[in-house]
């Protein structure tokens, strides 16, 4: 054998590589052992039943669709972790269900690792430390926008840059935007108020937690050019009014709410002069880590 390799090293290399590649190709195509058939899977699933629905479950490895079907239906579960931090913050914690040694990258330190036969549950905290139940930028597809004046318009034209109001100019939209505020980039949700109208952004009824956080800013270039913008935030019977004065900077407000209460939330924007009111807002419903 050694002599053959010495006599024909490249040929031997090719034969070795071809053998390796053939075996590897065939084994990669043969279905592997399913997660659901591993000892301890049923016990792990039973243990998951006690987790609350703010916990996101990820099955691992990712091709285990059948295992996913067997998980408790009250839990959000997928074969993948949300790939953006803004989407991760929707959940209070993450649990991965997989064979022994399973880890989820990008979530920091494990909080808990529980073993059930060949299967493990590993829990991680929300990496931002704060759960964002609702984020206007992230959850724009869940809101209803209306422009109320002499007539009421439902702004339901969905374009790549947000929700547009039929019959209105293209600036009359609610959607992603990046303003320049205090000299820096300020990403938010464009919500240009309209003279003589209320621009209403209604959120779906949600279970509230500690706080609603509202921020509003005018673009530096036009911040001083017109009238202030009034913002009215309503959560159920509670109403708070804020004013974004015609000046540079960010209006930041925290609206305390009762954890666990359900209420419709509406943000209304109005101004006495809409010229060049390049306004963007950030609206988030957040819950501190328990």
């Amino acid at each position, binding site marked *: 054998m050694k002599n053959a390799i010495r006599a024909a090293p490249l040929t031997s290399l090719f*034969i070795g590589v*071809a053998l390796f590649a053939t075996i*590897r190709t065939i*084994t990669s195509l043969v279905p592997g052992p399913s997660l659901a058939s591993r000892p301890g899977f049923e016990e792990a699933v039973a243990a998951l039943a006690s987790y609350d629905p703010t916990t*996101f479950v990820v099955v691992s490895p990712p*091709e285990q669709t059948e295992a996913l079907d067997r998980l408790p239906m009250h839990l959000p579960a997928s074969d993948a972790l949300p790939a953006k931090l803004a989407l991760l913050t929707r959940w209070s914690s993450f649990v991965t269900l997989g064979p022994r040694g399973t880890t989820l990258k*990008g979530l920091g330190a494990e909080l808990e690792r529980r073993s059930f036969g060949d299967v493990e549950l590993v829990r991680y905290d929300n990496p931002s430390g704060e759960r964002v139940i609702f984020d206007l930028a992230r959850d724009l597809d869940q809101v209803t926008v209306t422009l109320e004046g002499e007539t009421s318009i439902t702004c339901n034209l969905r374009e790549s840059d947000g929700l547009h109001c039929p019959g209105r100019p293209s600036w009359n939209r609610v959607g992603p935007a990046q303003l320049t505020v205090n000299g820096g980039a300020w990403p938010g949700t464009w919500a240009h108020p309209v003279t003589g109208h209320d621009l209403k952004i209604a959120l779906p009824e949600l279970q509230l937690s500690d706080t609603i956080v509202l921020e509003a800013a005018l673009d530096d270039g036009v911040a001083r050019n017109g009238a202030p913008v009034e913002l009215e935030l309503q959560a159920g019977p509670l109403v708070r009014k804020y004013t974004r004065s015609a000046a540079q900077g960010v209006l930041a407000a925290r609206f305390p709410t009762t954890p666990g209460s359900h209420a419709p939330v509406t943000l209304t924007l109005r101004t006495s002069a809409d010229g060049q009111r390049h306004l963007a807002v950030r609206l988030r419903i957040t819950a501190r880590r328990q």
Partner: protein
Amino acid sequence: MKQLVRLSIFVGLVLLGVALEPAQPPTDDMRFYVPAAKSYASWLSHVWAPSSWSRATLDAAFAPNHEHPPVAKYVMGLGWLVFHGIFGLDELTACRLPIIMLWAWTCLVVFRWVLATAGPLGALAAASCFVAMPRVLFDAHAETLDFTVTAFVTAAGWSFLQALENPQQRTLVKTAVFHALALGSKLNAPFAVAGEVVYWLLRDRPRRVGLDLRIQPIPAALLVVLIVAPLFTLAMWPWMWFDTAARLGAYLRFHVNHYNILFYFAGALYDDQPAPWYAPITMLLVTTPLVTLVFALVGVVKADSSPLKRFAIIQVAAQLVAVCLPGTPKYGGVKLFLPVFPFIAMLAGLGFAMAARELAKPFARYALLAGCMVPAAIGVVAYRGYWLSYYNELVGGVRGATRAGFERQYYDLGYPALRQALADHVGPRGRVAVLPNPKEYASYLRNWGFTAAAPEQADIVVLTHERRWPDYPDQQARWRRSGRLTTVKVGDVPLFSLYRGGPATN
């Protein structure tokens, strides 16, 4: 006689190409390129009428997909005229047949080019490696621009080397024509030209005279490439005949400011920011059959120095450097640097021919080649219909690649298996929603006799398992609750699942 043999091999390769995949899924580029191909071909078919040359007619004919040059659409359009117009094939198949023909022709070019340097065994190894590249096979069957530019870049390179060595009228004309066709196909072609300039500078090195560096006289072949070919390209692109500066500027701006396309690479999602510079090289290394990579590496390191070897290395480097540059868009598997693959196959052929010298008996050499091609051939057959999901043995196929955080599919393909799964679960004109990216599937659903609907109103929700869409995990979490009906897999990895549609149950 030689011509007859070549023609027979060409026909055989075309038949092989058709037999390998008679039912390739349509891509989301179909709705751009097929109408453009039809429009350009319709104009071609009336080219003798004087009114065809008015600005209004030309602008109307060439407005569709004017952001890309026309040659690939001429190629597809000729297929549409002949195979649809005369033989009655469906429009998509008719547009794809000339692409398959270009693939067969490129196989022959690869064979003949290597034949001159490394003999029949090296040529056969190169052609075999090229035929057994699953990712390339996908593009060789797709109604897109990528294989056309690959074919013409390969032919242009061959003609350039011939014209450089033997600058006769025939070789120079071939050089001009193939370069014009390559430049008129897609933006990869200028990178190949840059590689040719580098090749010439290394071949005819500038001389130092005192403090000056004097370049050698520019050869006729290079002048043809740099001056004549672009003029030919312009002549083939009527959209550029009017408002030339403005339209050329718009063309360049479109590509310089190309919109971002989501790319999931090594476990991270890239949208606003391009993927890291090494992403194209990584994709090349994990999607080219391992044996071909090893052959090519031996070709680079061990094969005798030859113009072909030097030229192929430079061409691979030129295409890869262009897509690795910071800020260059990186997405879509290997499609953005597809022209490297014929050159990798040629290097593989050189490498195999070098190694096979160790074996005395010709039979043993051919048997070695046949044995070494087995894993790649398995890959071609096992991933048939799903070649875009092919990953090589280094990562453990599509299953290993998915676990390692690579895309298991892209291009919003209208798989025949999806059509069949829908037919099994919903009646004609049934309401179907496709998530996470419904936009590209509406035309497929219409063509298949289903009705695109919002998920809440749909009978069936289809989820494509694509992690590049940020809301994929949330969509899966939501729809798994309504009940999974079936999942179609390749290599044990789910590509798409069908769920019951209707109002959310969470």
